[in-house]
């Protein structure tokens, strides 16, 4: 089966290992496939390259990036959620004449259409929401 994830919880919600990341790692070590992780709402903070993580804590964006590189997973930040929260890739930053890009290079910004597409493809979609 092909899985995709919809993550709307911010990284700080999970004081230890992020549940979405733990699940993603369990998918790639199973017989199933992980296709895409779509970050929505506050979930887009997973893709910020500018977060400064305490030395004894894992860097969420780097962890996702490593998983994606090893297993060919699409990491997608909802563009409306991301731009509103200041998570911009190079294209968006240039287009809006902002001084810098803030999205990690492993993440791509895309519209909600891509999420709808993921549903149409029939992936098994698992949501990880925040706690408020």
């Amino acid at each position, binding site marked *: *089966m092909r*899985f995709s994830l919809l993550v*709307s*919880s911010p990284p700080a919600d*999970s004081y*230890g*290992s992020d*549940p979405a990341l*733990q*699940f993603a*790692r*369990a*998918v790639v*070590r*199973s017989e*199933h496939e992980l296709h895409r992780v779509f970050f929505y709402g506050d979930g887009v903070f997973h893709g910020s390259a500018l977060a400064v993580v305490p030395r004894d804590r894992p860097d969420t964006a780097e962890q996702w990036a490593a998983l994606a590189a090893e297993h060919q997973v699409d990491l997608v930040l909802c563009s409306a959620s991301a731009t509103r929260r200041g998570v911009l890739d190079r294209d968006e930053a240039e287009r809006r004449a902002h001084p810098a890009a803030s999205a990690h290079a492993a993440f791509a910004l895309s519209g909600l259409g891509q999420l709808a597409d993921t549903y149409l493809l029939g992936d*098994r*979609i*698992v*949501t*990880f*929401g*925040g*706690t408020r």
Partner: protein
Amino acid sequence: MTLLHTVNSDASALTDCLSALSQGDALLLMQNAVYALHSRPAELAILGSRNIRLFALHDDLAARGLDADAIDWVETASYDDFVALAARHSVCAWY
């Protein structure tokens, strides 16, 4: 179609989820929802009789110093079990 429901808090998310469960569904408690094994046992213990399997995520229990071994109406699940359950059922996350 049966569903795997996930719940990550023991407050209104669990209340709303419980009112939406159907026979043959499964319920996985994760993050703070694992406390519900102790705070709301009456609502959870009866799920088995409705043919609804109840699971609690092992890592979240262990992190909080909880042990579900003595509770006979709940099964402990690893993340690998979570993936296997999600492959069997469509997943609905309550948060």
